[in-house]
C-alpha cells in the first residue's frame, strides 16, 4: 500500500535504492567479522602464528571500518530518500487540495486535511525510513547470521532455529493480543482528551453554573478508565523483554553445553564456539527489530490510507470542457430551473427549481429564514458548487463554459465566514488585485467604510494582521473583506450577510458607496435585516429552497406574507 505513494519519490528514487544496497554491504561485512575472529583463535593461537593473527586482525579492522562507511552512507541515503519522499507527498497532497472544489473541501473538514498534511505525513516518512533501513537490515542479518552458523556447524545451528521459531511465535502472539487492547486504550485516551478540550473551551459555562466539582468527577472517571485500559494493554507488551532475554539465555546455555561437548568430542573448535556466541546477539536483535518495524508500519497504515484517500478524491469542478478564451461580458445572471443539493440528494434538494433573471448593474436583495437556501443559491454563480439540474448563466453563457479563474475574477463573493491571512492589511487587500495601485486600494477601503479605522491604527495599511486577523474586530474584518472583493472590479459582487457585525448606520453608508461607485456591477446582497435590502431594485424572497416571490420592497410588503412577517418582526417597537 505504501507502493501507491511511491511515485512521490521522484528524483530521490536512486537514494531509496542505494540505501538498502549499502545496508546489505554493511551487514555482510558485520557477519564475516566473527568468522575471522574464529579463525584467529583456531588457527592463529593454535599455531602460535602471530603473523597470521596480525594479518587477520588487520583484515577484521578494515572490514569494520568499511562497514562503518557503508553504515554511515546508508544513514545519509536513508535520510535523503525519506525526507525527499515526504517532500514529494507533501507537495502532491497540498497541490491536490488546492484543486479541491468547495464540495471536496466540505467532505474532509479543514482540521482533518491539516492533520493529513502534518501528522500523517510524518508517520509515513518514519515508516518509509524504517522500511528501507531496518526492514532490509534485520532480515538480511537474521538470514546471513543463521546461514553462517549453519555453515560453521549445522548441528549446533539447530539451536538457533529452535530459538528463532520460539521467539517469533512468542512475539507474534504478544503483538496480536496487544494490538486490540492498544486500540481500546487509544479510543479512551482520545475521548478523555476531547472532554478536556471541551471543558477548556466552555470554562465560562462551567464556572457560571458552578460545575467544577462535577467536571472533576467526570474527569476522574475518564482518567481511571484510561489507566485501566493502559494497564491491560501494556501488561502484554512488558512480556517482550523477559521473553527475549529468556530466548537469549537459553541459547547461551544450550550453545555452551552442546558446543562444549562437541569441542570435547572434537567436532567443533573453540573459536567457532565463540563466533556462535557472537551470532546469538545478532540474531536475537534482528528478530526484535523486525517486530518493532512491523509495529511501526502497522501504525502508519492508517496514515497512508488517509493520504491516499485525499489523493484519490475526484475533483468535481475543474477546467475540463471549458472554452479557454471566453470572457465575462457583463453582469447578467440567469437561473434556469436550477436544483441543487450538497449531498446530491434528489429527494430533498437544498434548492428546488429556482428560476429568475438579473440584469447587469442591478442591485438585488435576498431574504429568507435560516436554511432557506440563500447562501447555496449565490455560491452557484461563481461555480463554487455545481448545479444538480438546470443551468446558471453569467454574462449570457453557462458558468461551466468559463475558465474557473476567468469566472471567479469577474464574480466577487464576500463569504459569511471571513478569513484574513497573516500579513499586512495591504497584502491582504491585494488578494483582490495583485497589481492594485495604492490609490485604488484606498478608494476601495473608503467605499467599504474601512479607511477610517485603518488609518486610526499606528501603522495604517502596513499594520500586521496576525494569524487569522486577530488584531481586528469582527466588523472590521467584514469591511476589509468587502474592500478586498471590491478591488477585483468585478462584474458581479455578492455580499453574503457581510454586514451582520456592522451597525445599521455603517451598513447603510456601505450600500450607498456601492450604489455610487459600482453602478455597472451587479450587486447581490443577502441579509437578515430588511433595511439592508429595502432599497434594492428587486428582492428575492426564499423559503425552503424555493423562490417564494420576487419584487420591490413595496410590492412584497403588499403581496408577500413572509416578507411582511419578517418586516414587522423587525419593526416592532416603533410604536
Amino acid at each position, binding site marked *: 500500500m505504501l507502493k501507491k505513494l511511491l511515485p512521490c519519490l521522484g528524483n530521490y528514487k536512486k537514494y531509496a535504492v542505494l540505501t538498502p544496497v549499502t545496508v546489505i554491504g554493511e551487514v555482510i561485512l558485520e557477519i564475516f*567479522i566473527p568468522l575471522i*575472529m574464529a579463525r584467529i583463535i583456531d588457527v*592463529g593461537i593454535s599455531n602460535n602464528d*602471530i603473523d597470521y593473527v596480525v594479518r587477520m*586482525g588487520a583484515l577484521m579492522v578494515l*572490514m569494520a571500518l568499511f*562497514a*562503518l562507511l557503508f553504515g*554511515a552512507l546508508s*544513514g545519509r541515503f*536513508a*535520510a535523503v530518500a525519506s525526507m525527499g519522499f515526504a517532500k514529494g507527498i507533501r*507537495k502532491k497532497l497540498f497541490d491536490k487540495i*488546492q484543486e479541491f*472544489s468547495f464540495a471536496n473541501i466540505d467532505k474532509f473538514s479543514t482540521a482533518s486535511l491539516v492533520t493529513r498534511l502534518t501528522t500523517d505525513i510524518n508517520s509515513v516518512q518514519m515508516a518509509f525510513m524504517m522500511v528501507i533501513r531496518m526492514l532490509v537490515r534485520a532480515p538480511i542479518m537474521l538470514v546471513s547470521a543463521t546461514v553462517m552458523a549453519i555453515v560453521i556447524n549445522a548441528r549446533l545451528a539447530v539451536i538457533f532455529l529452535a530459538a528463532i521459531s520460539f521467539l517469533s511465535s512468542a512475539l507474534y502472539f504478544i503483538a496480536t493480543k496487544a494490538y486490540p487492547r492498544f486500540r481500546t486504550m487509544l479510543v479512551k485516551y482520545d475521548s478523555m*482528551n476531547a472532554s478536556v478540550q471541551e471543558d*477548556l473551551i466552555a470554562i465560562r*459555562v462551567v*464556572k*457560571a*453554573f458552578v460545575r467544577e466539582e*462535577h*467536571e472533576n468527577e467526570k*474527569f476522574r472517571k475518564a*482518567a481511571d478508565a*484510561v*489507566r485501566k485500559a493502559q494497564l491491560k494493554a501494556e501488561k502484554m*507488551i*512488558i512480556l517482550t*523483554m523477559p521473553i527475549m*532475554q529468556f530466548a537469549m539465555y537459553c541459547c547461551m*546455555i544450550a550453545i*555452551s*553445553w552442546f558446543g562444549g561437548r562437541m569441542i*570435547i568430542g*572434537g567436532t567443533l573448535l*573453540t573459536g567457532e564456539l*565463540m563466533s556462535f*556466541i557472537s551470532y546469538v546477539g545478532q540474531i536475537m536483535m534482528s528478530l*526484535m527489530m523486525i517486530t518493532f518495524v512491523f509495529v511501526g508500519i502497522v501504525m502508519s497504515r492508517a496514515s497512508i490510507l488517509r493520504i491516499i484517500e485525499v489523493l484519490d478524491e475526484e475533483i468535481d469542478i475543474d477546467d475540463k470542457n471549458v472554452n479557454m478564451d471566453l470572457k465575462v461580458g457583463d453582469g447578467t445572471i440567469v437561473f434556469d430551473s436550477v436544483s441543487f443539493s450538497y449531498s446530491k440528494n434528489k429527494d430533498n434538494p437544498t434548492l428546488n427549481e429556482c428560476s429568475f433573471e438579473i440584469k447587469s448593474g442591478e442591485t438585488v436583495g435576498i431574504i429568507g*429564514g*435560516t436554511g432557506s437556501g440563500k447562501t447555496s443559491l449565490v455560491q452557484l454563480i*461563481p461555480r*463554487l458548487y455545481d448545479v444538480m439540474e438546470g443551468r446558471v448563466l453569467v454574462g449570457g453563457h453557462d458558468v461551466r463554459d468559463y475558465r474557473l479563474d476567468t469566472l*471567479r475574477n469577474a464574480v*466577487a463573493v464576500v*463569504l459569511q465566514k*471571513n*478569513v484574513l491571512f497573516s500579513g499586512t492589511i495591504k497584502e491582504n487587500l491585494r*488578494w483582490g488585485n495583485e497589481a492594485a495601485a495604492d490609490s485604488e486600494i484606498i478608494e476601495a477601503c473608503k467605499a467599504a467604510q474601512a479607511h477610517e479605522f485603518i488609518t486610526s491604527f499606528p501603522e495604517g495599511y502596513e499594520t500586521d494582521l496576525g494569524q*487569522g486577523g486577530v488584531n481586528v474586530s469582527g*466588523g472590521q474584518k467584514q469591511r476589509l473583506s468587502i474592500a478586498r472583493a471590491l478591488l477585483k472590479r468585478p462584474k458581479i459582487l455578492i455580499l453574503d450577510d457581510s454586514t451582520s*457585525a456592522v451597525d*445599521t*448606520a455603517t*451598513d447603510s453608508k456601505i450600500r450607498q458607496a456601492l450604489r455610487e461607485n459600482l453602478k455597472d456591477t451587479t450587486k447581490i446582497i443577502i441579509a437578515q435585516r430588511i*433595511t439592508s435590502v*429595502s432599497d434594492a431594485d428587486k428582492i428575492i424572497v426564499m423559503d425552503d429552497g424555493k423562490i417564494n416571490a420576487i419584487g420591490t420592497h413595496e410590492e412584497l410588503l403588499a403581496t408577500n406574507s413572509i416578507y411582511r412577517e419578517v418586516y414587522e*418582526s*423587525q419593526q416592532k417597537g416603533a410604536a
Partner: protein
Amino acid sequence: MPGPHSNRPAAKPKNAGKTLSRVMKYMFAYKLQLAAVTAAIIVSSAANVAGTYFLKPIINQYIVPYIGSNNPDMTGFISMIGILAAVYALGVAATYAYNRLMLNISTGTLYKLRTDLFTHMESLPIKYFDTHTHGELMSRYTNDIDTLREMISHGIPNLLSSVLTVTGIFAMMIVLSPVLTVLVVLVLILMLFVMKKIGGLSAKYFRKQQKEIGRVNGYIEEMIEGQKVVKVFSHEETVKSNFEKMNDELCHAATNAHTFAGILMPIIGNLSYALYSLTATAGAIMSIYGYIDIGTIASFLQYTRTFTQPLNQISQQMNSILTALAGAERIFEVLDEKPEVDEGIVELVYARENEKGELEETEIHTGKWAWRQPNKDGSITYSELKGDVRFEDVTFGYEENKTVLDGISLYAKPGQKIAFVGSTGAGKTTITNLINRFYDVPDGKIRYDGININKIRKSDLRRSLSMVLQDTHLFTGTVRENIRYGKLDATDEEVINAAKLANAHSFIMHLPQGYDTMLTSDGANLSQGQRQLIAIARAAVANPPVLILDEATSSIDTRTEALIEKGMDTLMEGRTVFVIAHRLSTVRNSNAILVLENGRIIERGDHEDLIAAQGKYYQLYTGMFELS
C-alpha cells in the same frame, strides 16, 4: 522497546534537578514498589553481566582441559551450567518483575498527575484561560504527559539498568584483563568524542528543522482554514508556489537533521566491531605469549559486544528524560498557578420564613433563597435573595493601562430588564464578566442585594445567576444531560418544562432519540439556532433570580427569534435580566437601555425616551425606520 527513535536533541528543562525531584515525589506514593523495582533492576543487570563471565570458567575448566578425552567427567560442567541457568532464570524473573511493577507505578502516578492537573485547572481564574491558548493547555495533557509517561515507565528504569550494566561490564573487564581494558577505554573515548560531535551537529539541525516545521505547518493551517477564500480569489497558483519554497527548505533542514541522527548508530556500532577486532587480535597475541587464556578472551570479547548497546541506551534515555522533564516543568507551571482567589464569606442558603416572619436557614429546598452574612461580632444576618444589582462608578481594565469600563453606574431593581447596546469592544461583555466575578473590580463598587459583591463567595454568587452566552458550549452528552447542567438534580419534569419555556421542546421531540439524543462537539448535529434554544433551556432550569443574556439570540433568525420571544418573556418574568444585543427587537421592551461607547454610558433611558432624544441609540437603529 528499544528503537531508532530518539537521537533527537533534548528540549532543555530550566531546572532538571528540581523538576525531577517533584516528579519523584509523585512516585513516592509507591515507596515499597519503587524499592522492589530498584532491587529487581540491580538483580537483572547483575545476572546479565555475571552470565557472560561464566564463559571463562566453562571454557577454561570444563571444555579445554577435556578436549580429545574419551570419557570426560561432566559433573563439574553440568553443575556450572546449572548455576548459570539459575543465575539467568533469576535475571529473567527480575526483568519481568521490575517492568510489571513499574507499569503499576507509572499508570498510578500518571492518573494522580492528570487528575491533579485537571482539578487545579478547573480552579484557575478566567483570566488564565483568556491569556493562554487552548492548544497550549491541551498540549500539557497530551504531549507533556505522554513524554512523562515514557520517562517514568521506560526512561528511568532503562537508564538505571544501562548504567548498572555498563558499570558491571567495565568492572568485569578489569577483573578479566586490565591490559585489554585499556584498549577498550581508548576506543571508548573515541566513541564518546564522536557521539558528542555528532550529537551536537544533530541538535543544531533538529532545531532548524523544528523551525521549518513550524513555518510549514503554520502556512498549511492558515491556507487550509481559508481554502474557500483562496478559491474565491483564484489564488491557488500563488499559494502552491509559496508552499513549494517552504517545502524545499523543510526538506533541506530535515535531511540534514536526520542524516546526523541516522549515521550515529552505524558509526558507534561499527566502532564497536572495530574494538571487537582489535581486542581479538591483541588477545590472541597475548595468548600466544602466554599472558592470557582462551576462556578469558571468550568472556572479554563477549563483553565488548554487549557494551555498546547500553551505552547507546544511556545517551538516548538522557535525551528523552530531559525532554520529558521539560514537559513536566510546563505541567508544574500550571499546577503552581494561583487558583481563583475567593475571600467571600457570604453564602447562599435555603431559607424559609418562621412564625415571626423572619428569615431562617433550612436544610430543605424551599425555592426561597437567602444570603447568610456572618458579622464581625459573630452573629449572622439573613437577607432575601432578590436580584438587586448596582454598579457605582466602576472603572476596570483587563490590563494595566487599558481601561475598558470608565465610571459605569447602573441600578437594576429586582425583576427589571436592563439592556446594553453599543459597538463591539464598548465594554458590554465586560460588565457581565464583573457581575459573575470572572474578573474582580479592585474596589467593592458592585453591590448585589446591598451586599458588596467581593464579599460573596464566588460559587454562591454564580449559583444565583444564570448566563446564556453567544457561544453555546454544549457538552458531549444527551440533550437531557445538557439541560440538566443548569440544575444537576432537576427532575425530568423540570427539564421538560424548561425546554418548553425556551420553545425547544418541539424540535427536541423531533430528534431521533428525543431528549436522549447524544450531542457531540458542542452540538454539531444541531443547527445554531437549536443549540441556542437548548442553552436557554439550560439557563431556565436553574431558575435563577438574575439572568444574563449575552447576544443569546444573535445566531437565530428573526422569525425563529420571534417564536422564542414569548418563552423568553416568560423566562424573564420576575427576574432581573441583563441583556446584551445588536437587535432592536431584543432590547425594545427593557426597563432601561444603556448605550455604551468606549467604556462609558452615554445614553440611558427606555426605548421611547431614547428615540425621542435622537442620540446615538436613535442613530444606531435609525435604519430600521426608513421607509422607502
